């Protein structure tokens, strides 16, 4: 597991490190901001070690990042790590509750779809999920806001100050991700539903609902956990579009503002933090899958 995760993390940090070096122009000027005086630029060049050879700079970059030192923001002058620590909870809350909603609705809909395979209900679920994954999340968010805040006046439209503020963003992302979970659950269940051991269980007189949940769903669990984990990781970055609509001060919004302001330390810190979390969530999901199905660990 670690044998695959560590090289990936190395590659990720190399790519993030290169963001500053790949762009045209002097990285010291970029790090100092375009309005900085020549003295400040020289100071920054020495402070950041930009006068050292590239491989040495990369090693320094990684050692500092591991210690949580991500430099200071050009725009605000505050440490990037602090800014990320302030913003991450919003994004993490949004992603966590969304994936929970997606898991409950997705597994439920997938189960219904598989049990009534090729019947009207199955078709309804399949069409709905296909439309859900084709809809841009930020547009779905706007439509939610239009319906529940503007027309019905039931829920707050922007901000993230109370739990009520999370209802619409979580509903948007949760319903959309539920589409993928439902499709995977359905496919995994259809794979096992024809198996002999289910017929044996039924013949033995096990109630149908128990056959479905204890026997069929338990065996479909590996691909379903995998897609839920993947969605959770994806949402850590994917919330950016919805954060924009609902004016939630998460990491996604922070990175977009940083790109517009060309605040490179902030961009690098944000991308590195979210990509690392994504890799970690995926590794954890793989580990869970191995626990659920010990055969995978041996492969």
């Amino acid at each position: 597991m670690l044998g695959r995760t560590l090289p990936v993390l190395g590659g990720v940090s190399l790519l993030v490190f290169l963001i500053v070096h790949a762009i045209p122009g002097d990285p010291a000027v970029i790090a100092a901001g375009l309005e900085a005086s020549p003295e400040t630029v020289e100071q920054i060049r020495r402070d950041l070690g930009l006068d050292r050879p590239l491989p040495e700079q990369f090693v320094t970059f990684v050692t500092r990042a591991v210690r949580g030192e991500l430099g200071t923001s050009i725009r605000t002058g505050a440490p990037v790590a602090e800014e990320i620590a302030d913003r991450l909870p919003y994004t993490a809350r949004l992603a966590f509750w969304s994936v929970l909603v997606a898991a409950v609705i997705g597994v439920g809909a997938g189960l219904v779809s598989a049990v009534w395979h090729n019947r009207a209900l199955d078709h309804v679920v399949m069409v709905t999920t296909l439309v859900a994954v084709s809809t841009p999340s930020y547009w779905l968010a706007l439509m939610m806001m239009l319906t529940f805040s503007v027309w019905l006046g039931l829920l707050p439209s922007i901000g993230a100050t109370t739990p009520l503020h999370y209802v619409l963003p979580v509903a948007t992302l949760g319903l959309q991700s539920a589409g993928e979970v439902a499709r995977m659950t359905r496919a995994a269940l259809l794979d096992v539903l024809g198996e002999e051991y289910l017929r044996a269980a039924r013949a033995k007189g096990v109630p149908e609902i128990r056959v479905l949940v204890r026997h069929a769903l338990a065996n479909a669990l590996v691909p379903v956990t995998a897609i839920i984990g993947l969605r959770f990781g994806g949402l850590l970055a994917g919330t950016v579009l919805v954060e924009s609509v609902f004016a939630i001060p998460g990491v996604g919004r922070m990175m977009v503002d940083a790109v517009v302001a060309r605040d490179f330390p902030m961009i690098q810190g944000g991308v590195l933090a979210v990509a690392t979390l994504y890799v970690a969530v995926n590794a954890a999901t793989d580990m869970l899958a191995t626990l659920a199905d010990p055969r995978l660990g041996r492969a």
Partner: protein
Amino acid sequence: MRAGAMARFAANRAAVAGAGVLLLVTAAAVLAPWLAPHDPLAVDLSRNFEGPSWANPLGTDQLGRDTLSRLLYGGRVSLALSVLSIGAALLTGVAAGLAAAWHRGWVDALFVRLVDVLLSFPDILLAIAVIAMLGPGHLSTIVAVAAYALPTFGRITRAAALASVSRDFIMASRAVGASSVWMMRKHVLPMCLSPLLAQATVMLGKAVLLASGLSFLGLGVQPPEAEWGAMLSRGRDLIRTAPIGAFAPGIAITVVALSFSLAGDGLRDALDPKATPA
């Protein structure tokens, strides 16, 4: 496409409907200069956020520009960006995948590592990183979306090519002294075409979603140019004043993305009858 595959595709109603919608949307985008009732960039601040009328069937936006005209011109940009970025991803992904499968050894190892790294970025995060380097605009949107799609095409090509390079006819071809480029073109590439064609169609839909998302965030197509995602970037003001202006671009993106995935799934089932239809 062989006749059998064509017949199988024609029998798939959802796929045919998807392809039909895509033809219509492409036609509307190409003919935008003749179909659009107004100049998509003509500002009239005295008539902003208007509802539908005879002059402006879909109302006007925050600057009084005609929404229908912007929708038609926006389709040109959204479709062109997707086609160009998927085209670029196909070229580079196929070349890299073929090189990896042909040379094996360290070339293949490097390829696999690189694909792993690219896939360890969530799609929108990779795009943000690319745009951070290149600055917002058309070209960087294309590069960003291509970087997202490239590993998928590379993987498919490598897998299909690996399966064919060890086959007898390649050995025979090599034995009679055929050049490697010629063998690639004649024998290996055709084996990869079916899965690539189906995947590229599906990815076009994802490219429309990603590119318009970037423009929505202000990182892709820049104002005042019309683009479907960019049209929604002032969406919060739109839904309070002229909601129809917020409906139109979102529905357009959804319909196009949906059509690409229906057509792509149909192509996959038609080209590879062994794959069980999901």
